[in-house]
């Protein structure tokens, strides 16, 4: 398979007033065309920074990045941001069609595409609503639809489902699997949930705690098309889960230790215990 993204020795340092923060350190990574890669790591390890560099929103301090843009008629990448990022002054339709309008696509095509993705995220009744009228989960769904509708060569997704409730999360994961299995776009997907990484990815990459470097890469050789409910009771899935958690827990504890008393971020732990609880429910 063709190499889509090649990263060599990537380092990003942020210079703040009183110190230099190394967010990402010496990262080497090659992602192939049509590959679905999940990046997992404790919070604060530089995942967002890495993605922002790939999206050309941040420049690397050192290292080399090569991204192949094979179809000039399509945008190279579209990002789903971790934080709330849909425009408050555009209604749902306008938000989803934003990328297309920036590219001056014909109005008819925009309307069709937008309709299709509004359907996908189940917001038909809210098509003309403004973000202040939507719940947090709905807003995140709009932001996912905005990226899909833009039809980029690479989807960059930064913990897109982290803020969603369980039903919405599973629904969108299934939708993402369906779209991906049909279109085979290159996807770089960040998550702090091992469960989610295993459901979606061809390959899971684990980053070390701050400063983020690469710890290991695990191929997820679960067959496709994948069914989320079935996966969770699959013994191989569970073996992979245990293996990854073994590696990751070390980093999480390291991250906790280095954070010391200054920062407390229980996000990761909470989420993990939630997925474990879900699992046990499914197994029972």
């Amino acid at each position: 398979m063709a190499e889509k993204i090649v990263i060599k020795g990537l380092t990003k340092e942020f210079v703040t007033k009183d110190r230099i923060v190394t967010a990402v350190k010496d990262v080497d990574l090659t992602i192939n065309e049509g590959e679905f890669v999940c990046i997992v790591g404790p919070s604060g390890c530089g995942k967002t920074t890495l993605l922002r560099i790939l999206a050309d929103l941040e420049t690397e301090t050192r290292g080399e990045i090569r991204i192949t843009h094979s179809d000039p008629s399509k945008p190279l990448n579209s990002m789903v941001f971790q934080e709330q990022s849909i425009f408050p002054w555009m209604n749902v339709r306008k938000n989803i069609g934003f990328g297309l309008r920036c590219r001056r696509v014909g109005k008819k095509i925009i309307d069709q595409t937008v309709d299709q993705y509004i359907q996908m995220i189940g917001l038909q009744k809210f098509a003309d609503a403004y973000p202040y009228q939507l719940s947090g989960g709905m807003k995140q769904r709009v932001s996912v639809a905005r990226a899909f509708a833009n039809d980029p060569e690479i989807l960059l997704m930064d913990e897109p489902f982290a803020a969603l409730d369980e039903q919405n999360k599973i629904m969108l994961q299934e939708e993402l699997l369906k779209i991906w299995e049909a279109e085979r776009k290159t996807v770089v997907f960040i998550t702090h949930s091992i469960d989610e990484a295993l459901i979606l990815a061809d390959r899971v990459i684990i980053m070390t705690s701050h400063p983020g470097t690469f710890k290991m890469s695990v191929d997820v050789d679960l067959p496709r098309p994948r069914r989320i409910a079935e996966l969770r009771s699959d013994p191989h899935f569970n073996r992979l889960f245990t293996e990854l958690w073994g590696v990751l827990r070390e980093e999480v504890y390291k991250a906790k230790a280095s954070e010391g008393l200054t920062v407390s971020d229980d996000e990761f732990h909470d989420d993990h215990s939630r997925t474990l609880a879900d699992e046990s429910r499914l197994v029972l």
Partner: protein
Amino acid sequence: MAEKEPAVTQASGEDLAARAVADGAGDYGDLARTSDRMPRKRRDSGTRWGGLLGFLSPAVVLILWEIAVPLGLVDGRFFPPPHAIAGTFWKLTLDGTLFSDVWVSLVRIVLGFLAGAIPGLIVGLSMGLFRPVRWLLRPVVSATYPIPKLALMPLIILIFGFGETQKVITIALGTFFMVLINTMAGVLNLDKIYLDVAKNYGANRRDFYTRIALPGAMPLIFTGLELGMGMALLLIVAAEMTGAVSGIGYRIWAAQAVFKTKEMFVAFIMISLLGYLFAEGLSSLQRRVIPWKQL
């Protein structure tokens, strides 16, 4: 219900100015927050009592005034009784003076307002969006903004003489800075994530102006327009002080010269009415232009 007293907005405007200069090198972020705290129009809940009380206080003032003059408690030469003012109002309406005064001033205000607001908007958006533009223009803006526009009037008269241009320019200057400062603050106050999204989704320069900065800064732009409107009303009176033969401001000064205080009060009423209508106009425009904001 637009209770926007020029005096209040004026003070807030100067407060803005003071801050704008004080933080010269810094950001205008807190400036925007200042204007956020400015008196906002709040719709009364519309209870019957609210409406009744709203009529009560002016009525009481008028009645007391009417009684106080014959009793000698208020000097009728300075404060002619309401019924006499009403009479003069009627007379000036019939002979057309009132209409022509209002019309002449209205044209000056609208022209000056547009001539100030449109460039203010464009420069404000550019300064908010592009750091080099900000670096380039901020010192000039910070240095010229605090100069009271009234202080500039003699210079404007020297340059433009006593024509219409002088009046329009005076008003335009006042409006320009109000709109510029608030527009820039509105853009700078936008969460940076929206600029990232725009960039990532391929927005070009025009998109940044029309799809991001302009709509995003709209709430503060309206604050700027409201302040600019207050400024325009203040400046029209000053601008018509000299070299004018009609206009509301002219009427006030002319009435003073011949001690016609009744005409003066009629002019006050018209200015107040204009202010009210402008504020209502702006706020109904605002509701139409910013449907995305919970009011």
